[in-house]
């Protein structure tokens, strides 16, 4: 790639009901990522029309893709801003512009910040914890094979960043679909020997309005997950468990399947 001197950051910003595009021209540095670019704007908030404007606001935290704060639409794709390197983004599109926009499926707070509280509320609905007796020393937890740990660890790296929810076509104004994030958490807690004891509670939540039956199998979720969580597998596994639970609800007793 020929040596660039500058590039344009085109940002969809503003307050709820008053959003607009604004462009900033920034000096090109091959080590820039979207975060360091936004930090430059903080230091010198002047747009392309050479007008001093309010610095852009965004959420950030660890900057190493493990906290889930800096989710946004970058060139239209939901992802974490910290791992979005400007050089790669320019190369991918062959243009001199990178576009940033807030997620569209969550209420806007300001500029690139949205309120993702809904996903955390869903964690409450599906009983996303292990029901332990208390916080005293009762010896080690149940034994587990390394294979099971491998899957549970992968599921448990979900940062509640919302990329999968944003990318899902079934999550829209006309549907109450909860999205892949929460379905995968149901799988996580049902895979634990102690967590399994509340399995039916979680599966019943998945049968409710907005539950797993709304999944349209578009498979966008797995493609955008920054942690490569096997979300499609989770949806398939929980879908199967929900079916079995429906049967159990009719035919089973607590002590047998």
């Amino acid at each position, binding site marked *: 790639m020929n040596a660039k001197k500058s590039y344009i950051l085109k940002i969809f910003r503003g307050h709820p009901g008053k959003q607009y595009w604004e462009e900033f021209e920034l000096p090109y540095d091959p080590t820039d990522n979207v975060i360091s670019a936004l930090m430059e704007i903080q230091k010198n908030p002047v747009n392309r029309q050479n007008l001093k404007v309010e610095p852009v606001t965004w959420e950030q935290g660890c*900057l190493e893709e*493990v906290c889930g704060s800096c989710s946004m639409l970058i060139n239209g794709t939901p992802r974490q801003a910290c791992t979005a390197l400007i050089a790669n983004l320019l190369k991918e599109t062959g243009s001199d512009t990178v576009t940033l926009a807030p997620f569209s499926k969550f209420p806007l707070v300001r500029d690139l910040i949205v309120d993702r509280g809904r996903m955390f509320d869903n964690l409450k609905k599906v009983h996303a914890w292990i029901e332990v007796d208390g916080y005293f020393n009762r010896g080690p937890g149940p034994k587990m094979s390394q294979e099971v*740990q491998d899957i549970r660890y992968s599921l448990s790296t979900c940062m509640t960043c919302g990329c999968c929810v944003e990318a899902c076509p079934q999550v829209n104004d006309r549907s109450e679909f909860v999205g892949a994030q929460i379905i995968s958490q149901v799988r996580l807690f049902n895979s634990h020997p102690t967590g399994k004891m509340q399995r039916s509670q979680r599966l019943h939540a998945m049968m409710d309005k907005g539950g797993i039956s709304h999944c349209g199998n578009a498979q966008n979720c797995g493609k955008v997950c920054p942690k490569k969580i096997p979300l499609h597998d989770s949806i398939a596994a929980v879908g199967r468990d929900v079916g079995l639970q429906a049967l159990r609800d009719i035919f089973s007793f607590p002590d047998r399947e």
Partner: protein
Amino acid sequence: MPVKNNKKVIVVGGGLAGLSAAMKLAEQGCHVQIVSVTKVKRSHSVCAQGGINAAVNTMGEDDSPLIHAYDTIKGGDFLGDQPPILEMCLCGPSIIYLMDRLGCPFNRTPEGNLDFRRFGGTLYNRTAFCGASTGQQLLYALDEQVRRWEVKGKVEKFENHEFLRLVLDDQGITRGIVMMDLFNLKLEVLKADAVVIATGGLGLLFKKSTNSTFCTGAANGRLYKQGMIYANGEFIQIHPTAIPGKDKMRLMSESARGEGGRIWVYGDSSKSILAPDGKTIPCGVTGQPWYFLEEMYPAFGNLVPRDIGAREILRVCELGLGVEGRMEVFLDVSHLPKEKLHKLESILDIYAKFTGHDPAKVPMKIFPAVHYTMGGAWVDWPAADDPDRWSRFRHMTNLRGCFNVGESDFQYHGANRLGANSLLSCIFGGLVVGTEVPRYLQSLSSSYVDASAGIYEAALQQENVIKQDLMGRRGHENVHRLHDELAEWLVKNVTVKRNNQDLASTLNKIKEIKERYQNISLDDHSQFANQTYAFAHQFSSMLELALIITKGALLRNEFRGAHYKPEFPERDDTQWLKTTKAAYDPQQDEPVISYAPVDTRYLTPVLRDYTHAKKIKPTLENIPANIALPI
């Protein structure tokens, strides 16, 4: 007259320390209000990678909590008070088991038991881990438990809210806080009889550190201005291995070396270096990889404590031996078998994402970076056999009813923290607070319910004045550029290697920045989600902390742990085996520094040697028989 059973507690900060405190307090029947600048699940604890230490001794090594305590005391170069360290290490195994029961996905042995890896500053495999994102997994397990209590109505969360001020009554007793909603900037009072501060470290002072952007230290800075004593400020840990970046230094975990990663540069036999055993040795063989840590520290090799690792990397780079002459060295894991690389996958992925190079194929390029704040709020610790054990309260600051825990306190790590001890100290401290706070509440003879409305109004008013002042400033300085300038001076003069001349000029520089801070102008005057305003408010406290760190470093004329001053190349126990305590005096432009003795009742300081240490059975003396652990 005993008070009505008002068990309301405010916990500020939702990382490992804050959440473990909240969880335990809820179990003890308290009503907990958590205040956090972010969703607690996004707290900086998620960045901890390598693991959590506990001498569970399942690897046939004859390990024990006493050896763990010995390693921790020695790793901290004998500056850490020993009673809290001992109890933390004794509690380690129970904490691992508790977290295991909470569903934290620890790696397993073939038999399905917990697996342990080796970490820096020890010769034992006592670090439990979840891949290479252990902090994230531990935090999530606690976040889940706290959510459980939230559903039960015992915990309330105020996320996207920032602590601004402690409310004290006329007797100086804690009665609540003032906080700000970071979305609508509204100031609000929360009332309670105990406040637990668990707001983490202050890495953001140095801007480019391994810390999250939340780690401004502002809460401690604000409390310090309200009279809280801040201890051992000068001890800042530099992690030997981070990925240099423009916006931050990304951590490359010690576990990369724990699993067998090796640090090297190309040797140059025409150059020589003074080895720690006093001999001058050539810098390897020209053109061949020189594994300098392994050669200079045969016993610990690549797993020397972090202060040593960081200093040696700097020394080698200063000799011009860094990668292509730059300030970088190689960290090589490319020789490791697949199973080991799999355990490190999450951190190797991050390296690949940021550099475009696959660490499984080519050695990584890394450099030391600011990582951990050993100093912090001074907190009390009556030992188990102290006669006044039950009339004092562990983890309470000098402000009555205000507790401090986790990276934001000064305890456990002395002059240098050992890898994988921070997760342990955060959870342990949180659990301790979970049992000490209810006891404190019971000891009170009055409650916030009886406090006069005036104390809350006055506190709100003070914060309103600050808000109007900041919003109204119309100078020419930009607060983010001032931050860059402060960080540049601190990184240059107050990190790995320090000297009195530069420390003195840094002290003056901070004062100059403090003056110029009066002339900032906010580029954003909006009343909604105004991050410039929030940061400008934090920056004022960050400047106070910078003064504490720099002045503490300037005065301490010795070499201890992370505090390395070539002018004074030896540890000096006669003069400097003492805790630094900084107090704020509005009449003076510098912190008032005093010193307190270190509690060394179990182990007399010995030489801190990592060249030929062997596995030994250390003898700790005077261990009390009546230790009661929090779990």
